[in-house]
């Protein structure tokens, strides 16, 4: 496979593989490790995972498309994932989301032209005590209102 996987990822994959009695079990963590590299999973990432773990490529695609944290398209540098479930909705999540849509000029599933932000609405993030909340890449931010959100966006280069 001509796909260029950095050695550090290969080493990580080896470490991941050591935790499971079957190679296929490592698929989710291996895909996460691959996605961390470029922010999304390309077709060749999938093929590499399939090849490395001995899984048919269609089974890899099944998994990639099942889990909502896997992306097959590049996201922005800061991927804004706004919770819109009940607890957050009771605390103004829908308003925050439309504020973001207007401010960034993008809809859910889109990325800003400069590649800085991408936006999606997601289900409960388990931070309902800090509703409304969102996740930027892996980091959680809670108790947001428009002003707090604007300040947060300023900080995200």
């Amino acid at each position, binding site marked *: 496979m001509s796909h260029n996987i950095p050695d550090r990822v290969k080493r990580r994959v080896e470490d991941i593989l050591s935790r499971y009695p079957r190679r296929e079990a490592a698929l989710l963590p291996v895909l996460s490790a691959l996605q961390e590299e470029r922010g999304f999973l390309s077709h060749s990432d999938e093929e590499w995972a399939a090849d490395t773990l001995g899984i048919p490529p269609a089974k890899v695609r099944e998994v990639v498309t099942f889990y909502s944290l896997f992306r097959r398209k590049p996201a922005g540098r800061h991927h804004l994932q706004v919770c819109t479930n009940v607890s957050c909705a009771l605390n103004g999540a829908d308003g925050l989301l439309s504020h973001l849509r207007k401010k960034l000029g993008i809809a859910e599933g889109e990325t800003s032209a400069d590649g800085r932000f991408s936006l999606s609405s997601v289900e409960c993030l388990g*931070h309902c005590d800090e509703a409304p909340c969102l996740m930027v890449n892996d980091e959680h931010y809670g108790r947001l209102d428009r002003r707090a959100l604007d300040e947060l966006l300023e900080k995200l280069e």
Partner: protein
Amino acid sequence: MNREDELFLTRDFGLDHLHRLETYVSRGGYRAAAKALKTMTPDAVLEEVKAANLRGRGGAGFPAGIKWGFVPRGTDALRYLCVNADEGEPGTFKDRFLMSHNPHLLLEGAILASYAVGIRTAYVYIRGEYESIARRLETAVSEARASGWLGDHIAGTGFGLEVFVHRGAGAYICGEETALLESLEGKRGHPRLKPPFPASIGLFRCPTVINNVETLCHIPGIIRHGAEAFLKRGLPRDGGTRIFSVSGAVARPGCYELPTGSSLRELIYERAGGVRDGRKLKAVIPGGLSAPMLTENEIDVRMDGDSLVEAGSMLGSGAVIVIDDETPMTLVLEKITKFYAHESCGQCTPCRVGTAWMARIAARLRAGRRRNGDVDTLHRLASGIKGRTLCPMGDAAALPVLALVAKFRDELERSS
């Protein structure tokens, strides 16, 4: 009962660095593990947990000791422990709270469970959205390993356990135990047909115990202080305390640990500070999004499994979502149905199609495009899902809609 009570999981949560091994050990951590491994047989540990009537804290409320007892004994066959840290039931954040404050408590619980059942490998399946917690857990695992609380010969005994942290990747359904197993095996999170149950054929086709984080966190206390003491903190058939995640329209959202069987009204008004901004309470979802909602006049109920079932709802994950009187029920309905439509694994017909259909109707209602018969259709769809799916998710999707339609039909039919 005071917060110093050692059977309260959150007793030391005010301490800085409780998540570090030293602090945990200084507060009595790993003493239960040492006691069990050095002075108790695995059977004795199992019997103690059975006697404690520790009901699962994940949602189904199945007694943990009985679950462990289902694993075939007397063989050397491989067995696994899966810690269900895929906390995804909307409104629930107690496992996050527990793991971020006290990851070693979970590890100690895992050691005890594994010792009782004869397990040498445990996986913590943690939802992918909890990346920082997963890292904290991994640090705790390294610390425990370095100090001999994990690995071979724990506490100098012949018992050994390896714990691995496995991250999910965004799928509510993986909180269902057989979907969790599928996911841990590297597949889509499709729930399995039961039987066989995981206790006989589970992870990698081996007997497997699957316990929720909070459930396991109670084990060290039970072993240190005995089943009797544990039972005194709760109800005879439902022992111990529970951590309630309270959110929504309350003044002080957060986790509150109370004896099982405490009053819902008290939890909302005394602990969580009542409804926010002086508004009135319209409805409460008492056990995570899947639990049928209760109205203002139904909240004088005790927060335990049996009492909530009697009240027509369920304790579920113990997540309380308070809805205030200014919130339109079409909003709640839209969010509930959208969630299940988004999270249905798609395997079986009623859930796959039924949830999506309900979500479309709810979205129209919310957008003011109601058609005649919509509410009846919702009711019919939810009834057609309830009890007719492969896994419990069908009920989870149907019950809240049925309750909402039953209790707020007028409001839904007025919406336009």
